[in-house]
């Protein structure tokens, strides 16, 4: 089992969701995040004082999948999130030891879906 984590542009959330749904991946958790990367920030101006802001708004996805779904998940995210502009984001795949569904107590591969 793997935990796929992705940081994407906020406005790509809907396309990514659709691309994942198309691959029958329906379970996702989403968090608000800020990201600092190669993407150029912007200049924040307020009452004459200016500052370079390099923490930009991003959305963080966390998707737990069984090993055989990892590639599809990655594909889905890329399909939905890629705009070919710097700042499109990253996907991280982490190994996961266990997954439990709170409602039923099921564990492992069945619990994920």
């Amino acid at each position, binding site marked *: 089992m793997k935990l796929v984590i992705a940081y994407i542009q906020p406005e790509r959330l809907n396309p990514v969701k659709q691309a994942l749904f198309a691959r029958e991946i329906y379970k996702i958790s989403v968090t*608000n995040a800020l990201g600092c990367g190669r993407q150029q920030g912007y200049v924040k*101006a307020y009452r004459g004082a200016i500052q370079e802001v390099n923490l930009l708004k991003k959305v963080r996805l966390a998707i737990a999948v069984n090993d055989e779904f990892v590639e599809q998940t990655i594909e889905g995210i890329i399909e939905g999130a890629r705009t070919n502009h710097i700042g499109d984001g990253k996907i991280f795949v982490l190994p996961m030891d266990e997954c439990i569904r709170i409602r039923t107590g099921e564990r492992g591969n069945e619990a994920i879906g």
Partner: protein
Amino acid sequence: MKFFFTFFVMFCFLAAPAAEIAATPAPDFGREALFSVNNLWVMIGAMLVFIMHLGFACVESGLARAKNCTNILFKNTMTPAIGFLSYAICGFAIMYPNSHWLIGHLFGFAGWGLHNPPGPAIAYNGMYTYWTDFFFQGMFAATAATIVSGAVAERIKLSSYLCFTAIYVTVVYPLVGSWGWGGGWLNTLHFHDFAGSTFVHSVGGFAALAGILLLGPRIGKYVDGKAMPLMGHNMSQATIGVFLLWFGWFGFNGASALSANPAIVSLVLVNTMLAASAALVSAMCAGKLLLGKPDLSMTLNGCLAGLVGITAGADCVSVLSAIIIGLVSGVLVTCGVLLFDKLFIDDPVGALSVHLLCGVWGTLAVGIFSPEYKLLTQLIGVAAVGSVSFGAAYGIFFALKKLFGIRVSETTELKGLDLVEHGAEAYPGFQFFSNM
């Protein structure tokens, strides 16, 4: 509002006592007091109209997304300033040309700038001073522009909006207004628009329509031909705005009597309040029936709809008619919002349904509910004002579009106008999902 002929009647009426005053040195406290109280009410009315600009700012920013909030606040702050200044420069003189008609009773001009006529202040028209007149009319002027502001929100370039406002308030609003309130041809026809269902609200609404047509809908508003909810970010703010508009409307309508005449003003206020209340109730019910749940923002629109609806006839319809006008307005605005959405006319705040639809309805209602006025005349007025103001607004927006472009870039719209046009968010530090 101000009828050219009343002006003369009053003047004649005052001429005799004025002569008397000259003869006797004893001050006439009664006359002075009456003058002061009439003048006072018109001044206070103007202040109430002023606070409507804050109302508009709150409604429009509250019903827009957080990422465009600063931009809307900016526009709404500049609007009364630009409106008042440009009205001082020439708008006032176009709207109230007095005898200086240049083309028939269609276009007149009394000269650049402001010129307080010499002589005692009371001589101006016996009711209020020249400055009060300008103060009140100047406050009215910018409201027409503010109506546009909401309808084109979240996608118009700041500079284009400001240009449009300056031109529209300087020329189009006063020109059209002069036909009725300035003693022009509509006034001669006995067309009645007490406080501006047509001359203010429709004039604003038609410009809004022109703007929307030329701008197109916001990104994300239509997905596969279906209207999506692009939710306003702050219902508290929108509610504050509506209450302030409602409050200010007591001045907008009440002081349009142009005196503190107890009988007229108090009836106007009761009618205004009843129409707004009735419209709130009918909009709530219509919302519940058509949408399943009572929608706050639609109900708030209902309130404004009732206020716009009663504006043309607040002085000449019965309280029962006022309630009916309000009830109809509340239903009209609800259907309007749904209809415009279906027609791919993306109006983030419902300005068209409120100001245009109900402005027209209110003007016609005068012909229906008041025996003094004819429906046909009212129709003529609506059609004439509508075609000219829509045409002019379309022309101005079209020219601006060709010259500089009127819509922000796609990236700007996605990131939000606040960050790109002003370099600063409205709520720094607060976390919100900006994909909405």
